[in-house]
C-alpha cells in the first residue's frame, strides 16, 4: 500500500508571532518551526497503517526550503521517503493552488490513501484535505479521531459536537484529515534521526507536475493583503467581597458600563 501523508511546517505554538514591518507576512527571524501538530497524527496514522498492512509511507510538503526540516522529522519518525515542493513556482500558493500541487503528487506517486492534519495551525484554513479529495475525485472524511481499515474499506469516527461521534465507512482510495485523539504520535528516536539523513527526498517543479500557471502567487484566487496583530483586549476584572455584593456589583456594571442590561 502506498500511503501518502501531507504535512506543513508551521511556527511553534509557543512562538510569539509578530507581523513583519511591511505587513506582508510574519517576522520569521527567531521563529521555531515545527510540523503542524495535527499533521503529526497523520504521520502516525500512516506509520501504523504501514505496520499493519505493509507498503511505504511518503510524506509530501509544500513550502520554502526550510520545509525539508519538517519532512525530515517525519522521516525520523519512520516515514520512508519525502517529496518536497519548495520550488519558487509553488511559493505563495493559496489553498486551491496547494491542493492542486498535492493532488498532482498523489497521482504521480499513485497513492492508495492519504492522511493529513485536519488543518494547519498557522492559518487554520481547513481546506486542503477537502479540495484535494475533490480534485482526485476521492471520498474523504475530515476530523477523524479513530481509524480502522479492512481491505478496501476504512471505518472512521469523527466528533460531530455534543460529545457525539459519527461513524463513517469509506471506500479507499480516500483522504482522511486527522484530529486529536486518533493516536499518540511517536517521537523521533536517535536511530530514527540518523536513518532519516539517508532517506530519499524528491523534488518536483510545477512543470514536472504539469501545473504551470495553476500554482503559486500568480494563480492564487485568495490573496492575503496584510498581516496585523489583533487589537489588544482590555484585561478582565475580578470582583471581590461577599457573593451577594459581587452579584449586585456585576449587575450594576452590566447596566452602567457594559450597557447590556
Amino acid at each position, binding site marked *: 500500500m502506498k500511503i501518502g501523508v501531507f504535512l506543513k511546517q508551521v511556527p511553534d505554538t509557543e512562538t510569539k508571532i509578530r507581523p513583519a514591518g511591511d505587513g506582508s507576512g510574519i517576522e520569521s527571524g527567531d521563529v521555531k518551526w515545527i510540523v503542524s501538530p495535527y499533521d503529526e497524527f497523520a504521520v502516525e496514522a500512516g506509520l501504523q497503517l504501514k505496520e499493519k498492512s505493509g507498503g511505504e509511507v511518503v510524506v509530501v510538503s509544500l513550502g520554502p526550503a526550510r520545509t525539508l526540516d519538517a519532512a*525530515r*522529522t517525519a522521516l525520523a519518525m519512520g516515514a520512508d521517503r519525502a517529496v518536497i515542493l519548495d520550488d519558487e513556482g509553488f511559493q505563495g500558493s493559496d489553498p486551491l493552488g496547494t491542493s492542486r500541487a498535492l493532488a498532482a503528487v498523489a497521482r504521480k506517486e499513485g497513492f492508495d490513501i492519504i492522511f493529513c492534519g485536519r488543518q494547519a495551525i498557522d492559518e487554520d484554513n481547513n481546506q486542503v484535505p477537502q479540495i484535494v479529495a475533490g480534485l482526485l475525485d476521492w471520498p474523504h472524511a475530515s476530523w477523524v479521531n479513530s481509524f480502522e481499515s479492512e481491505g478496501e474499506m476504512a471505518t472512521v469516527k469523527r466528533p460531530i459536537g455534543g460529545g457525539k461521534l459519527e461513524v463513517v465507512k469509506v471506500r479507499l482510495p480516500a483522504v482522511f484529515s486527522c484530529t486529536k485523539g486518533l493516536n499518540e504520535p511517536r517521537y*523521533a*528516536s*536517535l536511530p530514527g*534521526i540518523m536513518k532519516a*539523513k539517508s532517506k530519499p527526498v524528491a523534488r518536483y517543479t510545477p512543470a514536472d507536475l504539469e501545473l504551470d500557471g495553476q500554482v503559486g502567487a500568480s494563480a492564487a484566487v485568495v490573496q492575503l493583503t496584510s498581516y496585523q496583530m489583533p487589537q489588544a483586549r482590555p484585561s478582565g476584572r475580578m470582583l471581590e467581597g461577599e457573593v451577594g455584593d459581587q452579584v449586585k456589583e456585576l449587575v450594576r456594571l452590566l447596566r452602567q458600563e457594559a450597557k447590556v442590561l
Partner: protein
Amino acid sequence: MSLNFNLGEEHVLIQDAMAKCLEPFRGRQEELKQSILVERKFPQDLWDAICATGLMGAVIPEKYGGNGMGLLSCAIGIEALAERGFGNALLVLTAMDAACILRNGTEEMKQKYLPKMASGEMKFCFGHTEPDAGSNAFRTRTFAKKDGDDYLISGQKTFITGADVADRMLLTCRTTSREACAEQGLPKAFGLALFIVDPKAPGIELRPIPTRGIEGMTQFLVHMDNVRVPASDLVGEPDMGAMALFNSLNPERILAAASACGLSKHCLDIAVKYANERAVFKERPIGAYQAISHPLAQVRIELDSVRLLTHRAAWAFDQDMNPGTVGNYSNMAKYQASELAVKAVDRAIQTLGGYGFSEEYGVIYYYEAARLLRTAPISSEMILNFVAEHDLGLPRSY
C-alpha cells in the same frame, strides 16, 4: 562560512525526543521527585523510557548497536533531560565508559558490551577514586595480579556512585606497582590498567557511604578481595592504561558540563516562573525588581557561554581532535559549568525566599548537586592546574 552556532535540525529533534519520552511521567512528578531527591533512587522505568530514545547509543556506532550520532548529540540529550529535572549520573558514566571501550577495547569486548550499553540494558559505573588516590591517579593501589588466563583484583575504591545499580564497573587498577615502577626507573604513567568488573562478583563487598551531591544515587566503598576477572575484560594493554584513562575522562567532563547546563536551566526556569508570580509589595511581581531580575539575567547569559564551551568540547571530541585539545576544551567547559550551576541554584534559592529551602520546590536539593561539580568528577583546582600548565605553559608546582 564554516562557523555555525545554530543547533542542527537533528539536535532539535533530540531535544524533542527527550521532552516526549518524559511525557508519560507527567502525572507522576511528585512521586518521581520523592524517589530521586529524597530516597535517592532513580526509577527503572524512567531509565528505560530515556534509553528507548537511543540516547545511550549516541556514542556507539551502528555496527555495535548504537546510532553513532556522537558525543555532542549525547550531551544535548543529557542537557535536555537535566533541564527537566532528570539528570542521571549513570547516563554520564555509561556513555563515558562506552567511549572508553570503543576507543581501547578489543573487537570481542566491543561486541560483548556495547550493544547492551547502547540499549540501556547495561548500566556502567566508574571505579577510580581510592581512599588515598583522588586527584592523583598515579597513587592508585588497587592491584590486578595475573593468574593464568585471569586476573585477581584486590583493593579499595571509594565514593563509587551507583555501584549497587550498575551492571558493570570500569575499574582503574595497577598491573605494576608504583614501587616497582620506581625501582625499575619506569615513567610514572606506566603500570595502570582498566578492567570491566561486575560489582556483584564474588570477592566484592559494597558498603554505602552516606554522601550528598548526586540525586537518585548512592556512593559506595567498594572492597575487592581477589576478584577473578578474565583477561578478556582488560580494556587495552596491561600497564598502558594511563592514556586510555585520561582520554575517557574527557567525555565524562563534557557530559558533566552538559548536565550542569541542564540543571542550571531547570533552576532558572523555576526562579523565573516564581519571580513572575510572587507579589510582595503591591501587585507587582518580584521579578520586576532588578535585584531579583538582574542576577537571573546574568545566569541566562552565563548559561549560553557554558553551553557554547560544552558544545565546542563535544564537537572537538566527535572530530577526533587530539586528546590534549579535547582535554583543554573539556576542562574549560566543566570548570565554567560548575561555577554556573552553583550560581544558578543560589540565585534560584534567593528568588524563592523561604520557599528556596522547601522540599516541595526541591531547589535546595540541587544546591548539593551543583556544588559537587566543583569537586567531582575533577576538582576546580585540578582544572586550573591543567589549564595553567598545558594551555598557558606555566610551570607545575606539584
